[in-house]
């Protein structure tokens, strides 16, 4: 009786281990395919002359969330033209951790000073903490270029990043309708 119990327990254990291995293998294949897809998209944007669009589209490690408009183009109608996303008082995106690597976050944009009538403070809040805060230039340029330590991720895989403009009060209006500021580039690269 004991032998039978041991044998059947062993068989169940073997099935579970095999199943776990298969799942791990499946997961590995899925991750490889996803990585190849993102590479393909990067090359596609390059090949199609849509590098500007690539700078403001969601990628493997950047995901644009609420507060950003859909992608817009100047002149409109072609992904190969200058690309940007309108933002309002705040705009939210997610950044993915690259293991223990230090990362460089670069954001570039422009604020419509003729509408805002002042030089707003442009702040970047990374997982709740402000990592950059600068006023717009006289020409309206806004942006930041900061190095982010991996410790800022805490234990998470993704970090919440908010871009904030100090002089926009109409939080309830959609960013494209406001036309107060836009982002033309968000990059997230490993520091060599």
């Amino acid at each position: 009786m004991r032998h039978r119990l041991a044998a059947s327990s062993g068989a169940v254990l073997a099935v579970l281990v095999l199943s776990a291995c298969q799942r791990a293998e499946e997961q590995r294949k899925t991750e490889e395919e996803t990585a190849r897809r993102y590479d393909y998209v990067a090359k596609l944007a390059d090949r199609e002359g849509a590098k500007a669009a690539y700078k403001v589209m969601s990628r493997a490690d950047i995901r644009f969330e609420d507060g950003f408009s859909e992608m817009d183009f100047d002149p409109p109608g072609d992904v190969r033209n200058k690309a940007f996303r309108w933002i309002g008082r705040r705009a939210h995106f997610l950044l993915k951790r690259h293991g223990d690597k230090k990362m460089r976050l670069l954001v570039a944009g422009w604020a419509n000073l003729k509408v805002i009538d002042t030089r707003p403070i442009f702040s970047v809040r990374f997982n709740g903490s402000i990592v950059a805060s600068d006023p717009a230039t006289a020409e309206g340029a806004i942006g930041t270029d900061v190095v982010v330590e991996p410790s800022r991720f805490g234990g998470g895989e993704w970090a919440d990043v908010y871009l904030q403009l100090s002089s926009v009060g109409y939080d309830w209006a959609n960013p494209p309708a406001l036309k107060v500021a836009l982002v033309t580039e968000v990059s997230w690269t490993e520091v060599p």
Partner: protein
Amino acid sequence: MRRARPSSERCAAGRATLNEAPARPVFGVDITLPTRILGPVSVLSQWPRGWRARTAAGLVVGLLLAPLVYALPPFTRPFLWEPGVWGIAVLVAYCGFGWAVSKAAGWARVDVGLQAAWGAALIVVLGGPLLAVGVLVRPVLVAIVVIGNVLAVLAVLAQWRSQAHRAAALRKLVTSDFRIAAPLAAIVAMGVLQYVAALCDLHANPYDDDIAYLPLAKRLLDVGNIDEPFSFRRLSSYGGQTVLIGLDLVRGGFANVHLFDRGQSFLLLLGLLAGYRRGGLRPAGLALLMSVLYLVNQEDMHINTASYFSGAAFFFALYRTQIMALERGTLRSAIPSALLAAGACTLRQNYVPVAALGLVLPYVFAWWDDRNAGASSAQPRKRFAIMPGDRAALFQLISLSAIFVACLIGYWAAAYRSNRTFLFPIILGTFNPAMQLKATVPSVVSELKMQVSVFMETEPLRTLIVIVPAALSFRDRRRGRPLLAFICAAAFGFVFLVHSFSQSDPGNISRYLFGFSAATVMAVFAESASSAHGRSHGSASPRRFMVHGSRLSHFLVWTGLAIQVIWLRPVETPKHLAIFKNIAEAVSYDIPAGTSWPVEADLYRRMQDAAPAGAKLAVLLDEPYHLDFSRQRIGNMDMPGYSSPGPRLPYFQGEDAVRSYLLAEGYTHVAFVRDTFSRYHYRHNYWVERTLVDIELWRIFGPYLLDLMDNLALLAQHHPILFEERGIVLLDLAKGTGNHAP
């Protein structure tokens, strides 16, 4: 509106009449059908007697059988008449099969709408095993319609006297009361208009229909199965909608593919609304008219031939059947519920949880209420303990679930045969796990945001936010609390769908929700109208028949309806204008006999003739429904990336990997449309834009499609091209050696 006798009283009277009539021999032969099937009633007990009745019966039978002339092999027939008349024959077949269901389930008298819905459900359920063994070809579909029509004739004759009485009563009612006649005339007119409009809308959706849904229907007609291991649309649906569309297409054409969902299913829904009655009361004619207006006067969700009105009809029929079955309380009487729930599951995959819960929940509620009622009078008992008295209720619940599962087994076998899964998305089968449908970075807040925004922005039913809370305040005293159970089932289906498909957007998700959302709203309207009407007429119906609500809740329900009909109607693109434009276009068509329509059909046939018969042919084409699926074993790669048999079609690894995979799977030939020639779905620039700009769903899918199109174009440089015309290319992959071939 007239007060009728309570339904139980009427049923008893009907049964007595039917049972008392003796079975009479016809031509010396007693053709009483077996009592196990039809109950203790002879089908001839109400046979028309007297020359007037027989003449009238002859006329009715003639009218019912006349459309069957189209069951004959095709000959030259007017362009719109053939599908239009055949569509009526299909509707009559639904009624015929529905009559058989009603007899088998022991229902003596059922209104035409419910009978037709039961019949459609039976046809769908029967289609499952036939699909699984691959025999649901054109002649079998024709035979189903013919058998259904014969059953309908039998039903008319078997119920002649009671039907004649009902017809006479209806005639009297309509001619004597303008308040009945006017709404009824308007409803009939809208039904006819919708049917004609569905018939005359000759435009299918190139995005869904042309590349996937219509090829599935064509495959069904040609080879009797819908095995498509590359097709995401096949993977994510059991195929009931395809079977029902196939019934129309056997004598129609691919130009009239909207006939089923927009035409026949809409008529089913009208019939179900018109036949609705609670405690002997029908909703007022004006209320019915408003409900129909609610259905027609909204943004058109029918962007393709997938399930919309068919889902609404099946779910509303399920709701009505559950009420009746719970009142009677026998397992046999609930068989149509199981058929409808199973049928609804096959129409769209996301209907599965709603149908299953819609079937089971009222019985759980009934069981729970019975226990609590018993516990209050007897000694206290443990809350979840199963007592001997519960066994009958539990047995009924388990038996009903078993019947429901049995009805689906055919579709499960067919789905497994095609895509190695019978429960997508829980069991993935041939689905590619790298193509997830949920948002990549889900969070509780984003999930809540999606759930709320879909509820608030649900198109076209934009007043759900008013109607659903008002309906929740209704007090349903009936056994099993069917209205509450149905709302709970729909709510679960809503939340589950939004959770599982969070990559999409509210507009698209609304399409998947339409079937059970519309049915829920119709149920609320019908209950509210019956209840209010009963109160205004001092109904003496037992309270157990009724749903009660405060004046405020009724007011909110009808306000929600009125707001939708009056203020939220489509202004920029009025549907009625599109309907008349479509009719004008369709009647202007003059298609000479013997010519292919549209012209692409000839092109596809020539391409197919260039490939050897019996070969395995993988296709990536704009309109694969022009292909003859019996000539080659065709695999339709409609949405590359989502599904593929075996070890998965390799992507982003070059053309050699694609070629090796296809050859290993036996596909020696591949046909594709060059992206510079594609009419719609496979345009290069279109997908570049969607990949870079669109919602996550398309940003993920786009690269797969572009990569496959790139690879096929590269393969065409190194393999013999057997056919190339207007961008359609046929390659022989077995010849040539891939990228390094000379």
